[in-house]
């Protein structure tokens, strides 16, 4: 079987500076693949290459076995959910309209849109009658982030890309939403690629963790494999967490 996402020897550069080089990674259906690394290591670039917000200089990216160059760029993006840290809800639209916009653009009937929006709100634990009519400015940070995830899932895409999705939340809300997300993923079984610099989040959410350094894969494995690794670089990255545990 084809992997869900296949990156083959991908290069990406900006203004003659290499951001990603020799990057190859297979991501299977149903896994939560976490791209972990410091700011500027190229992890967000990898996400944007997958849904073609950016084009690689060299190499190939396949989604569902097909090169992203062969995909219609709009169809590709609608096939892949996308969640960013700032959420980017459309401030002039109600929550319901935010969730329903893509469905409207896909020419769904009004009744079916209403039904789907209701489903999506229930899925993220927000009461449809009450929250459907609210504006993003009337939501808490955690609620906004939930709506962002629901919006990305509106067309039920098999793949979900998440760029530091919980990074802007306070620690308590973050833990809450992380747990909710895991429960949701248990039911939906999406293929998720999640970017974070937070090791704790990576260990909690990832079925596999890819440690990135300067645009290359420095290490790759399950959380257990990473934790028991004797590799110097990995140990350095894990050190802050270990120290916390000792306390």
């Amino acid at each position, binding site marked *: 079987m084809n992997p869900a996402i296949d990156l083959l020897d991908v290069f990406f550069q900006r203004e003659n500076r290499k951001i990603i080089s020799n990057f190859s990674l297979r991501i299977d259906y149903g896994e939560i693949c976490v791209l972990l690394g410091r700011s500027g290591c190229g992890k967000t670039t990898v996400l944007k290459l997958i*849904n073609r*917000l950016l084009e690689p200089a060299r190499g190939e990216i396949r989604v569902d076995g097909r090169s992203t160059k062969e995909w219609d760029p*709009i*169809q*590709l*993006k*609608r096939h892949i959910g*996308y969640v*960013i840290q*700032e*959420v*980017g*809800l*459309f*401030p*002039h639209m109600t929550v319901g309209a935010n969730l329903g*916009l*893509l469905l409207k*653009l896909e020419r769904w009937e009004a009744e079916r849109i209403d039904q789907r929006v209701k489903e999506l709100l229930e899925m993220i634990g927000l009461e449809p009658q009450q929250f459907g009519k609210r*504006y*993003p*400015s009337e939501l808490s940070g955690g609620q*906004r982030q939930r709506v*962002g995830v629901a*919006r*990305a899932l509106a067309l039920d895409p098999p793949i979900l*890309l998440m760029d530091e999705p919980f990074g802007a939340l306070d620690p308590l809300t973050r833990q809450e939403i992380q747990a909710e997300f895991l429960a949701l993923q248990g039911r939906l079984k999406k293929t998720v690629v999640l970017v974070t610099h937070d090791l704790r989040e990576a260990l909690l959410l990832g079925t596999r963790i890819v440690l990135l350094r300067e645009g290359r894969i420095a290490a790759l494995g399950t959380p257990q494999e990473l934790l028991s690794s004797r590799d110097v670089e990995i140990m350095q990255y894990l050190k802050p967490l270990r120290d916390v545990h000792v306390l």
Partner: protein
Amino acid sequence: MELAEFLLENRAEVTRLIGQHVSLVLLSTVLACAVGIPAGLVMTRSHWFEKAGLGFANVVQTIPSLALFGFLIPVPAIGGIGARTAIVAMVLYALLPIVRNTYAGIRGVEESVLEAGRGLGLTPSQLMWHIQIPLSLDVIMAGVRVAAITSVGVATIAAAIGAGGLGMYIFRGVASVNSTLILAGAVPAALMALMVDFALGRLEVHLRRHKRS
């Protein structure tokens, strides 16, 4: 109150001149919107048009209004004496604030909102119609407001080239050193500018609701 007496005695003529004034302002502002808003939108998409458009609108703005009317009179087709020339000049004047604000409004839409839209798979024109334009309406309206207020002022000068309007009283008053006559033109024009400012200002505030996320 000589002024009140004058206005009352000549109310038929005053009403006619106010009517002319309003038509001049309305027509030129609407035309300027019809040209300026699309131009501002195109400028956010094309780098060449961005420079050319802002440059043109800026240059027009630096020409004194009386001189602009003068320049236009000898121009065939759009020139001559009368309301048509005045409207062309007023449209040219109204363009800058409308073009500039449309451009700035679209450019000012938060990057994270655009990024989310692009990532969800909105086409560039869907992004424009569903996100960028609705989110810039208040800024665009602010430009229209400035254009309309300016037009009320410029329209008084239009009387100099035979376009009518409240400027008739002002020019007549200046020529005959009659301050009542000057005020009969100036006071209604000033009130009109204040009313336009208030009404469009309210509209702008209304459009700004729910804008911040």
